[in-house]
């Protein structure tokens, strides 16, 4: 058996080293690709969740506005049988808004805040308070206007809560 000699041994060592380097490089590449893939997936998921919440919030705000418009027409006229369907639409859409708000709050807790609950309750009692549903109800122009203001406040508070903007505490200095 002939001795391969130091030159061949050196070549084998170099080949082994190169092979090891190649394997390490492949490992790094695979883990980098995997990390990037997971990161993209997570970002996409967060983005789609955020888009979903924004869409539901837009739906809720549109419903609030539509209830306010129905309620303004309703309160600006005395009770008639023709207004009964409007009454039903108002009650049903209010229910929908409240359910939608609860569903959104499950994913975006700021929408379920105590402050927003108070504003929502104010909206509810302005729209369906007074003599709502009473057959001999008279026109209530004041309430017809008030529903527009409470609806705007409700929408504004939802947008503000979502954006993380809060009013300063009472008495705190306000910077302009």
């Amino acid at each position, binding site marked *: 058996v002939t001795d391969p000699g130091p030159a061949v041994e050196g070549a084998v060592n170099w080949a082994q080293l190169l092979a090891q380097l190649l394997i390490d490089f492949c490992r790094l590449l695979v883990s980098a690709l995997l990390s990037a893939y997971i990161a993209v997936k997570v970002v996409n998921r967060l983005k789609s969740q955020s888009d979903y919440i924004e869409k539901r919030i837009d739906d809720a705000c549109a419903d609030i506005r539509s209830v306010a418009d129905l309620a303004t027409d309703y309160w600006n006229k005395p009770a008639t049988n023709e207004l009964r369907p409007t009454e*039903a639409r108002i*009650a049903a859409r*209010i*229910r929908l808004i*409240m*359910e939608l708000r*609860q569903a959104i709050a499950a994913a975006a807790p700021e929408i379920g805040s105590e402050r927003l*609950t108070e504003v*929502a*309750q104010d909206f*509810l*009692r302005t729209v*369906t*308070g*007074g*003599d*709502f*549903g*009473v*057959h*001999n109800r008279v026109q209530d122009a004041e309430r017809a206007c008030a529903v527009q203001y409470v609806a705007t406040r409700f929408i504004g508070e939802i947008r503000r809560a979502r954006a993380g903007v809060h009013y300063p505490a009472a008495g705190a200095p306000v910077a302009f």
Partner: protein
Amino acid sequence: MADQTISIARDFSPYPAGRTPGDGPFNGQRFRESLLVPAMERAIAANAHVMVEFGGADSYSSSFLEEVFGGLVRAGRFPAPVISRVLRLRTDDPVFDAYVLDARTYLQKELTRTAA
């Protein structure tokens, strides 16, 4: 004896509205006289509570709520401390929280007024 439970929607109407019979068949006065007062009498006799459940109705006009709960105090059938001890307002449905809160406010307002 167990607590008396009245569901406004189930036992009276899902569409309660108005104050007096002139305002419609499912008015506050009728609810108070036909359901709430008898339940209060039974609960007092049995040392129990009256639970008024708000869920399931279409909506509650403030005239209905004021007549039922403010009117209960004004009617003077039960002393204010007895009403406070016996009557419980509740709902399992968060949508109706605002109405429960309003009913409590009407009740409290009249209890405070009569105590003064």
